[in-house]
């Protein structure tokens, strides 16, 4: 098996106007920056993007928002992006806000062939509008459906040509879940390693979920909130 492609251009081949794209990451942590830059270059538009956040004004998915390439966002939290809020409040951008845990589980369900499941999150709120309510053990739950995507784009730390991936720290977040839910899943990694270098016991995403993998050119890995403490002298 050799799923390695050489560039983000090759990796994103086939992404077209109007498609649904999942993108891993939490805030700016663990986002597929190289593919996002490529999507900007491609000028692909009318995208439905499924991503926990929408980046910031000038990084991450914010770059696609600036260029108005996104028709609809499916996210849980968009508080860091003023342009997003503006487009949403003005009605230019369609937005489906869903609870973070439901978002994670809906992607996982999509990848796992589970079409729907019940969750307590969102009962009695706007999120429940139009959704079936059912009681289990006396507690109300709503029916949530699986999410899938034409393309899922994830960012990992290391990967091999079989598509096996490991993530570093909290850059894991939604990546392993979305990796499962793409009809085609693209992985951009900081380092391609030889098969066998990743311990099979500690692979985070088995290669079966990945169709294309490439080593990103550069990773800015911008920090959103740099919080530090001083060393005591």
């Amino acid at each position, binding site marked *: 098996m050799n799923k390695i492609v050489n560039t983000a251009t090759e990796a994103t081949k086939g992404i077209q106007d109007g498609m649904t794209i999942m993108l891993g990451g*939490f*805030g*700016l*942590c*663990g986002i597929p920056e190289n593919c996002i830059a490529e999507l900007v270059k491609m000028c692909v538009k009318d995208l439905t993007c499924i991503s*926990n956040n929408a980046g910031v004004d000038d990084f991450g998915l914010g770059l696609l928002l600036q260029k108005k390439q996104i028709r609809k966002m499916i*996210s*849980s*939290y*968009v*508080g*860091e992006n003023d342009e997003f*809020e503006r487009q*949403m*409040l003005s009605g230019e951008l369609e*937005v489906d*806000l*869903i*609870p*973070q*845990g*439901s*978002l*994670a*589980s809906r*992607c*996982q369900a999509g990848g796992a062939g589970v079409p729907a499941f019940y*969750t*307590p*999150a*969102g*009962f*009695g*709120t*706007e*999120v429940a509008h139009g959704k079936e309510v059912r009681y289990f053990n006396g507690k109300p739950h709503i029916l949530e459906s699986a999410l899938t995507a034409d393309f899922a784009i994830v960012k990992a*730390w290391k990967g091999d040509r079989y598509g096996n991936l490991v993530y*570093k*720290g*909290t*850059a*894991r*977040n*939604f*990546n*392993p*879940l979305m990796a499962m839910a793409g009809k085609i899943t693209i992985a951009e990694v900081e380092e391609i390693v030889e098969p066998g270098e990743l311990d099979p016991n500690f692979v*985070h995403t088995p290669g079966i979920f990945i169709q294309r993998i490439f080593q990103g050119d550069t990773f800015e*890995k*911008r*920090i*959103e*909130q*740099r*919080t*530090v*403490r*001083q*060393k005591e002298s």
Partner: protein
Amino acid sequence: MLDKIGIAKRIAQELNDGWYVNLGIGIPTLVANYVPKGLNVEFQSENGILGMGAFPYEGEEDADYINAGKQTVTILPGGSIFDSATSFAMIRGQHIQMTVLGAMEVAENGDIANWKIPGKMVKGMGGAMDLVASADNIIVAMMHTNKRGKSKLLKRCSLPLTGVACVRRIVTNMAVLDIKDGAFVLVERAPGVSVEEIQNATEGKLVVEGEVPEMKL
């Protein structure tokens, strides 16, 4: 009257040994700084950390290690990292013993609103809806009144809800209150704050039973 740190200190008294705790953004985050000595408590961050530690030393910050507030953090020995589905399995599956979060409004029946002001501000619910729908022990940390002096403890929430009848306890700059039988039951007063002042700042039904003690911080 407490400041934000005072609220955090008072909430820290709610902690028990061996608990796993999820702290929301803002005042709740401060609670981690005031864990009573001798208590072992683990903090969960819903983006995928258990055993969250202090901020990194300057120069040691790593973009791949952040908390749910997108702040750079460290991880303690004995901690672990996991994906978002596993993180919310912990939350939804009630493996977390205490959840602290902020609110824009709380109603006397325990409803909470904290994610949206229609037409004005929409940040999204993040993990808050999962947290409040799942946990038994939801503590709200907030100011008793908003910037215009209006009560945030209401008969009914006016804003879109985050969760229904889920708040157990509220710690404000003025008081500790429990939700019980459709009312705010006054548990403690902040130092120097009278029952009458709390009554005046509370729009929802307030129950005062006997002598209400002052907080000890």
